[in-house]
């Protein structure tokens, strides 16, 4: 009997440890936060370009996470990407004229939606569409623009030099 109890104790410890590890991995290592779940309300925003935005990405105001991206679809009526966000019900006073932008955390970090508050006295309600959006910056576009402007600048700068000669 004593041996059986030692086995049960060891197994119990092992199972506890295993589930604790799994729980820790899910809650602490990932960006999923429980408690948000089904609560809260939805906002919709359309973007020209969502870049690398993925469902589950944070939605933040001034760096405070207030919700998550729930769904990203393509809207053939507007020919734009339609992003549905779920916002925690605690943050229910987002002005109607606020703008949403897609930003990158750090140079190589993940993308998130940042909301800049407007000044309206009416607040966004469940299901409402945000009017002002700023698309994600695509690195390739940025680089080609940069190279283009540099090339343009160089040819512009070269012309006077050539004229000097």
């Amino acid at each position, binding site marked *: 009997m004593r041996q059986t109890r030692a086995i049960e104790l060891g*197994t119990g410890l092992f*199972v506890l440890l295993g589930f604790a*590890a799994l729980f820790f991995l899910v809650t602490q290592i990932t960006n999923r936060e429980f408690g948000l779940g089904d609560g809260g309300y939805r906002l919709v925003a359309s973007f020209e370009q969502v870049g690398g935005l993925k469902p589950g990405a944070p939605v933040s105001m001034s760096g405070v996470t207030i919700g998550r991206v729930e769904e990203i679809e393509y809207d053939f009526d507007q020919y734009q990407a339609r992003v549905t966000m779920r916002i925690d019900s605690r943050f229910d006073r987002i002005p109607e004229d606020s703008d949403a932008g897609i930003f990158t955390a750090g140079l190589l970090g*993940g993308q*998130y939606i940042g909301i800049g508050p407007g000044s309206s006295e009416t607040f966004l309600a469940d299901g409402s569409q945000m009017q002002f959006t700023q698309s994600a910056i695509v690195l390739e576009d940025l680089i080609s623009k940069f190279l283009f402007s540099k090339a343009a600048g160089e040819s512009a700068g070269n012309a006077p030099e050539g004229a000097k000669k």
Partner: protein
Amino acid sequence: MLAALTRELLQSLRAALEALGAYSLFAARLFAELPRALLRFDLIVKQMYNAGALSLVIIMLSGLFVGMVLGLQGFDLLERFGSEDSLGTAAALGLLKELGPVVTALLFAGRAGTALASELGLMRATDQLAAMEMMAVDPVRRVVMPRFVGGLLSMPLLAAIFSLIGIFGAQLIGVQLMGVDSGQFWSQMRAAVEFGDVMEGVVKSCVFGVACSLVAVFEGYHSLPTAEGVGRATTRTVVTSSVVVLLLDYMLTAVML
């Protein structure tokens, strides 16, 4: 010459098909017994102790070292791109999706799989299985099933422990030794790792758990009742499980990515 070669090739193809068939039939039998086996919880607990709790030390130690190596290699690699702050992300994703499930499965095959196979083989060799048959007790139900279930339940838990300890190992090297910022390490990791990544690892380790346990009990149960037969069963357990795990890993990664 060519005819002989063709014949040999056909023969080995046939042998492989036969083995696959035998495995499938055995697996079908085990899955058919599954609901009944879950009722014998006391037996499963004992086997989880053998397969899981006793593998804990080797899993934790290996996890720590694999994580530390990831910390070193990852740092060296990421530093070249000036993005050593992403070390946490790299280590966590590598461990959760790949190294955790796979290395755990390989260690499991070596530690618990061989123990299972040789135990069953010895029970066969010493007539214990035949004695059960004679006592009107089905050895598959009484002996094989609890070992199978205990093994497949242990694997995801072991893999989770392995991954977690590995992440801390990577943190130990990256943050404490190489000077990656601790806040960056954790926050970047949290921002990038998704629930689906963890689940991918869990799904993989569940599949590997079924595969490794199945191979071990199959080889043990069907081993020849001699010292040589038991030895061969344990060797085949390690070899077959390892190959199957790596093969399944590729297939699962391709499907889930």
